[in-house]
């Protein structure tokens, strides 16, 4: 009996310990403010600026000058993105991706002279990109999208192949050559000499260049696919051509419906959500059956990447004999998703941000951080409404690109009356989850209180500064920074 009691007590202690650990893990900040690229990559930024010198490859001075211009614009792009905090450092994500890169390097040593400079781009776009100069960027959107380590490895290997095959550098060279070629100059002069149809002629010059560039680019993509598959094979990482088909569905992100009616997600706030707010009350063209054949867009042949089905067809014979898929660790997925949600929020993309939160709740995730972020979205919407910016904060997407529930959520955020929105904000401010949130998260509530109180308008800057000085390393400082001035 005593043994049994002791067992129960020890179990209880373990449970409490585990619970505390989980709570701690859930509520701690994802990364520190100084992990944003402006701070974290400051040295690398300065080093890039200093050391990414344009090589002398053309004897023709004009071509070399143009090449330098293009080369420098790439440096400016990277350093500018670092300054804008487009990238972030997180040890766990870095280690996970670097391990994939290390596995690829280990088995393909001859292809690599050094380890690539990895950056994690905070973009929600399902993508990764090679910048040349051994720089590889992986978007948070890709990490949350992929279903297996192997799928992620394929995209990384593909981008590494671009760097190995020097595609970015070659592309810059080709561009410099084209822009300084007699053919291009003559085309431009022909536009100037022509009396009529100048816009069409100029458009044609650009399209010829774009087509030529993308034709090469398509060969490049195909080459990169082939090398990537070889690298995966050498590294004993499974390759499934169906990955390409899945990548074709990246645009369907917000077509995934929520599991529950939209109003259910607001049940805890005790504000009845009226059905009328979910239904589009519009007489406008968005509710009509339009079907324009756009005559001015770029035709399919100009897309930078080959069609995913074409890629699948080309590589289906190269599939690994036995396909073993390793799931992405839940902690990596969750972290990347949270980082993505925060970034969307900080960029005032409130509807997709809230939709992602609800999708997470659909998975049964009870982490109070999502309640905290729901509050932030409601408070952000309330603040935007006061600032006459609700329309941009909601970011209305035409119905054909989104699920029915996304459309309803979008309608709700757009149409909920101002007084009800205020009530929702106040109700969310009094939510039971706040007690479980760390001090820096609670500080956001105080900050919003100052931002949204019309009588405290002058105190908003002071409140932002106060937040920054009280929570100097909180990731939420990024938000407070907007109101510092």
């Amino acid at each position, binding site marked *: 009996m005593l043994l049994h009691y002791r067992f129960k007590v020890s179990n209880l202690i373990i449970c409490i310990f585990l619970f505390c650990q989980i709570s701690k893990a859930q509520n701690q900040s994802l990364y520190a403010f100084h992990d944003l690229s402006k701070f974290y990559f400051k040295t690398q930024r300065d080093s890039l600026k200093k050391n990414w010198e344009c090589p002398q490859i053309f004897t023709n001075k004009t071509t070399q000058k143009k090449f330098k211009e293009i080369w420098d614009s790439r440096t400016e792009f990277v350093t500018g993105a670092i300054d804008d905090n487009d990238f972030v450092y997180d040890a766990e994500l870095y280690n996970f991706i670097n391990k994939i890169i290390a596995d690829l390097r280990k088995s393909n040593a001859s292809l690599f002279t050094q380890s690539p400079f990895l950056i994690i781009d905070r973009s929600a776009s399902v993508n990764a990109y090679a910048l040349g100069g051994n720089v590889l960027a992986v978007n948070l959107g890709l990490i949350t999208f992929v279903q297996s380590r192997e799928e992620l490895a394929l995209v990384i290997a593909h981008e590494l192949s671009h760097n190995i095959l020097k595609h970015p550098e070659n592309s810059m060279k080709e561009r410099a050559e084209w822009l300084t070629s007699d053919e291009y100059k003559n085309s431009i002069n022909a536009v100037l000499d022509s009396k009529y149809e100048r816009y069409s002629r100029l458009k044609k010059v650009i399209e010829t260049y774009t087509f030529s560039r993308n034709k090469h680019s398509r060969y490049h993509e195909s080459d990169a696919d082939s090398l990537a598959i070889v690298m995966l094979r050498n590294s004993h990482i499974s390759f499934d051509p169906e990955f390409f088909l899945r990548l074709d569905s990246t645009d369907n992100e917000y077509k995934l419906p929520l599991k529950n009616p939209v109003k259910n997600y607001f049940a805890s706030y005790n504000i009845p959500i009226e059905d009328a707010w979910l239904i589009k009350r519009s007489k406008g063209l968005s509710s009509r059956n339009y079907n*324009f054949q756009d005559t001015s867009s770029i035709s399919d042949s100009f897309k930078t990447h080959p069609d995913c089905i074409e890629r699948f067809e080309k590589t289906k014979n190269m599939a690994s004999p036995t396909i073993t898929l390793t799931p992405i660790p839940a902690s990596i997925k969750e972290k990347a998703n949270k980082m993505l949600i925060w970034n969307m929020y900080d960029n005032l993309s409130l509807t997709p941000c809230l939709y992602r939160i609800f999708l997470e709740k659909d998975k049964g995730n009870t982490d109070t951080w999502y309640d905290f972020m729901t509050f932030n979205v409601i408070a952000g919407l309330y603040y935007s409404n006061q600032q006459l910016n609700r329309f941009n904060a909601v970011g209305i997407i035409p119905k054909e690109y989104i699920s029915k529930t996304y459309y309803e959520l979008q309608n709700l955020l757009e149409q909920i009356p101002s007084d009800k929105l205020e009530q929702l904000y106040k109700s969310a401010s009094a939510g039971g989850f706040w007690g479980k949130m760390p001090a820096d998260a609670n500080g956001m509530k105080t900050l919003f209180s100052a931002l949204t109180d019309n009588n405290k308008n002058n105190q908003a800057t002071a409140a932002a500064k106060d937040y920054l000085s009280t929570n100097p390393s909180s990731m939420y400082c990024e938000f407070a920074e907007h109101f510092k001035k």
Partner: protein
Amino acid sequence: MKNQILTLLLCFFCVNTIAQTKVFKEVSDDISTETKAIIQDNSLVGYIVFTRLEKTSEDSFNYKITLMDENLNDIGTVNFREIGLDLEAVSFDQDVLCLAYLKSTTHGKTFNNKKQAKHTDKKDYVLTQFLTLNGTIIKSNEIPVDLNSSLQMQSAEWGARKFQYDGDLKHRIQLTNVSGRGFACFYGDADGCNLVAYDFKGTQLWKKNIDDKQQFALLASKADVYLLQKEKDKYIEGGGYLSGFNFDDGKAFPRIKLEDNEGRSLSLISFGNDPVTGNPFISGNIINKSRGNKILTIKSYTQGPYDGIYTMDVNGHNKKDIKQTFVYWNDGSQKPTISSKGYIEEAKSFTLISDAFRDYDGNTYFVGSQLIKKPKIVAIAASVVTLPLIIVSPMILAMTGTMKCKFTDASIIKLSSKGVLSFDNAITCNNSKFVRGATYITYVNSRSFYSLDNSDSKSNYIIADDLKNIMIYNVNQKKLVRTIPHKAGNLRTTIAPAKDGHFMVIEYNKKEKYTSLSIEALN
């Protein structure tokens, strides 16, 4: 327009060479763009961006139409080639977009010499174009017009003389949808005025020649088309007639003269459809026979130019179907007490009514700036003191006047559906400074008023656009819902009507030189 035309160009080319810079500048200089709201049944349903891309021959151009929904999302584009076009009006119904242009080989065109101008094949038309929502132009109609133009020399520098044909349409093109039936188009040229009806396939149903008048306003109501006409130069205000036509066959209804039972002329403040009945509704002031029709200065406004206000509901085509309500100042029947000169005791001011609208309960609201006047005591005293000096005293009065006036808050006067007048409320505005009574009203009153509504919640809002702020007032709740400063730091804010129940916020950042748009709910 979200997708700027030159984005594609500029993405790929960051060019510095002279030829490249020059070509981009010259090509972009040739491109001109204008945006218009698409209106259906008096509601904004979307936007159209009309772009002249380039010249394709001596007379013709390539054009691009970009259609956007009410949330400014692109729906699609259509490209076409035509001779010189000026987009004048747009309307929409039954998934067909009707665009009306002035099409001309000479209008707005500059010629390098007289000979070239004289040899140009001069052609001018009103062009109506019918476009479906799959981007197909289903029909275009041309009606030749006479712009009464003659060749004029433009200002010349160092002998480089340029020539241009002057002349224009006498009355701009007005276009409206006739719900479920088609479109009505009105225009006037040197040969006269015309009202034309089209079905949704773009087929012309009929064309009516209309006697020329000073001004016209076109309105579609159910199956009818109405033209409100103002007599030529007879009055500063008033002198109006309402003509109606059956849309299906063009048959005219008896003309309605805008005057009261004693022959007083009626000024026009609003002309639209009643939101509940859908019938035409007119409102304005009853003009005093002797003191009216000469308001130019503030002082003249305080001397009783109007005898009251009126509403007119056109519930049918016969005289007996016209419901007229006349409310006269100072006839003892009305509260609040309003003097014969229009002074409202309750508001302690005159009200310069400048907007009127009908709510969903049949009440009519008249809105305008409050005007107060005070004697110029110092000037009067000075003229009294200098009375012995026969010339000086009248000179003082002539120079300074005896009265000073200023605009204060805005008044809302309600005329209930039962014809009972009441002072409803005031909207706090920024007071103007005191000015001489002889000052022209237009110099002092820089406020504008208009009304917006939310048909879903059946709420009406008054927009009072002041020099410093824009006030949005909820009529049903009798409260100010928003006050938007025109200027805040580097931001200059203006607002405009948008989709139903919303308004558009246009912010210009003077420092960073960009404009941002937002569409916000009225509530």
